């Protein structure tokens, strides 16, 4: 007989369970289960193109800008419109603001307490009040980054969540010297906070070897990159298999690697032998350069043992915030942001389907739309980071749970496997789109 034990996940975005299957007093399998499937792919059918980006934004309150922007990119492909450089820069700033908020929240509320426990720096359970008192300077630095990320998206997106300025054809934008000055100060502040937080991470954790149970098995790393440089808006998709073999592919070729039936949950992968991973770790694997000397210095402090461990994603969260703040400061200096450039009108549709991709904070995000004769959506396929990662999450938590259960302590199993789940930074809202 198979016994099924269900436990609720905490400190993750959204509502998820772990389902543990026990047979003959051994754990046979563990599943990370997400419940509230919403069916956005169904909701989008019949919707007007100008309305689609506003609707898909509501898939996720953490990566709303990525959802809106990838939607605009997919629609722009149908009109065969090349977005002006100013709009591209503003979209990048919006995505940077979103990343600051999303990564800093995940690092502080979800990863950091686990890291303290895993490396036995703090041996008792850490509640939210212990956490904010643990290191007041860390707490205030993080709060500030969360707030700044929010403000940046308000300033460039019109709203801090569910931005309204990105539209098919570009971004609604009016140059303002004042705004540039404020945002410049913001990014400088974030950089200074991050230097402290990164140093704090290095001081606390770099001397340890990360635990083997968190090692990522042989997987396919999938990420966008631009000539092998870090880029979340523009570039090509690459799959890195194992340690060396790279495979670049054009976006429209994605069906050679994975596909989905939009009426059913889940993604089908062609490669049945390896799980896929998207997110900071895959970006780190695929990208050869973050374009910053400071970053190379920080990364050199961590060896291969860290690079292949899912716990490394927490450090990469900090690194990516740093890179994007540096890049954003360069964007803010660009004279293009000072001019008034009209947006192209959306006239005739060239292609009846459009595919777009960006790297959302949690990984590659692909939207694929088809329209009917009345120019409303007849099919939408959304490939969303957490949904891509689920098979690997299940694989890793099952292995860890089997090993932990040798001591027959089910409560410990429930508690410990959630640390792997949280290290993936799953976005359940996204996965239940």
């Amino acid at each position, binding site marked *: 007989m198979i016994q099924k034990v269900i436990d*609720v996940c*905490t*400190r*993750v*975005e*959204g*509502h998820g369970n772990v389902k543990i299957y026990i047979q003959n007093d051994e754990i046979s399998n563990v599943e990370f289960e997400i*419940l*509230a499937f*919403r*069916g956005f792919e*169904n*909701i989008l059918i*019949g*919707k*007007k193109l*100008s*309305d689609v980006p*506003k*609707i898909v934004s*509501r*898939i*996720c*309150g*953490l990566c*709303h800008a990525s959802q809106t922007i990838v939607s605009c990119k997919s629609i722009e492909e149908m009109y065969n419109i090349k977005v002006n450089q100013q709009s591209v820069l503003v979209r990048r700033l919006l995505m940077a603001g979103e990343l600051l*908020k999303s990564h800093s*929240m995940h690092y502080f509320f*979800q990863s950091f307490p686990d890291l303290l426990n895993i490396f036995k720096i703090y041996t008792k*359970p850490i*509640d*939210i*009040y212990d956490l*904010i008192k643990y290191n007041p300077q860390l*707490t205030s630095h993080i*709060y500030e980054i*969360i*707030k700044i*990320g*929010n403000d940046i998206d*308000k300033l460039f997106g*019109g*709203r*801090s*969540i*569910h931005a*309204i*300025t990105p*539209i098919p*054809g*570009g971004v*609604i934008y*009016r140059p303002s010297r004042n705004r540039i000055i404020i945002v410049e100060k913001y990014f400088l502040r974030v950089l200074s906070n991050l230097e402290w937080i990164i140093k704090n991470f290095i001081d606390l954790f770099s001397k340890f070897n990360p635990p083997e149970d968190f090692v990522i098995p042989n997987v396919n790393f999938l990420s966008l990159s631009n000539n092998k440089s870090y880029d979340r808006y523009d570039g090509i998709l690459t799959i890195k298999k194992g340690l060396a073999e790279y495979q670049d592919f054009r976006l429209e070729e994605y069906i050679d690697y994975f596909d989905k039936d939009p009426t059913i949950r889940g993604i089908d992968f062609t490669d049945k032998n390896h799980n896929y991973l998207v997110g900071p770790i895959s970006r780190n694997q695929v990208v050869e350069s973050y374009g910053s000397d400071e970053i190379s210095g920080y990364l050199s402090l961590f060896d291969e043992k860290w690079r292949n461990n899912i716990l490394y994603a927490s450090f990469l969260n900090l690194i990516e915030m740093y890179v994007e703040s540096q890049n954003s400061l360069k964007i803010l200096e660009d004279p293009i942001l000072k001019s008034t450039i*009209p*947006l*192209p*009108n*959306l006239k005739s549709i060239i292609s009846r389907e459009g595919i777009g991709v960006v790297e959302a904070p949690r990984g590659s995000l692909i939207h694929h739309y088809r329209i009917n004769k009345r120019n409303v959506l007849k099919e939408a396929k959304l490939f969303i980071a957490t949904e891509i990662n689920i098979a690997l999450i299940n694989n890793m938590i099952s292995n860890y749970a089997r090993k932990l259960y040798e001591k027959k302590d089910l409560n410990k199993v429930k508690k410990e496997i959630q640390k792997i789940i949280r290290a993936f930074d799953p976005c359940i*809202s996204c996965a*239940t789109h």
Partner: protein
Amino acid sequence: MKLKILIASLTSCSGCISSVLSSDIFPQFLERIKLSYFPFISDENKIEECDIALIEGCISMDSQIELLKDIRNNAKKVYALGTCAAFGGILSLSEKKKAGAISDVVQIDGIIPGCPPPLKLIGNCLIRLIENKEIKLSEKNLCSSCPLRGNNNIPFEKPVNKLNPSNDELTIFNEKSNCFLDNGILCLGPITREGCDHICIEQGIPCEGCLGPVSKDYTSNLINFLSLINLSKDLTKYKGIFYRFSKPKIGW
């Protein structure tokens, strides 16, 4: 004694709770209350007696009703945080899924509307809650303070045939900007509560009604309004407007 506060999510995008977390007042709020349940940032997963419950998200599954009733039984006051909890929200667009407001199954003490609620509104509400005062919302519609209104009344007679301005018509608010309805673009300002500082309108985008109506029922307000204006056939049939943030109350 510190007030005990519970923050829970049903079916949602987490945008409302992440807005709470990123509001200026949150660190101070956290110090002044005792957070008894907030799974997004806390491991505590038992629902216990509390003073105030803030609920984000709509009801889309039967299993959420039990959780909600449990919270209601344990909380002195229950508030709907955001438009999904208050009216059903974006999932109302689904023909396959239910999207219930929490007031469909439990009695509530108030709403903090918006998709997500504006940060200023969240800040004001959190302060009032810790001071044990009722949440106060404006009783006026968005037009009453709209920068595009000028001296005109709402132009009900103009034909309305567009959902959004086309890209060459887009104008970020300036002194020459004109009422959307006057320009033939659908704006839900007349039936939407003020409180958002017209952020969309100032960017050149008409109101999509995310704060909901001043009086209770979302759909009846919308039906009345759409029948008053001269809406094109194409838009009359478009479900994206009709069920954008709510649908008629359903049984559970």
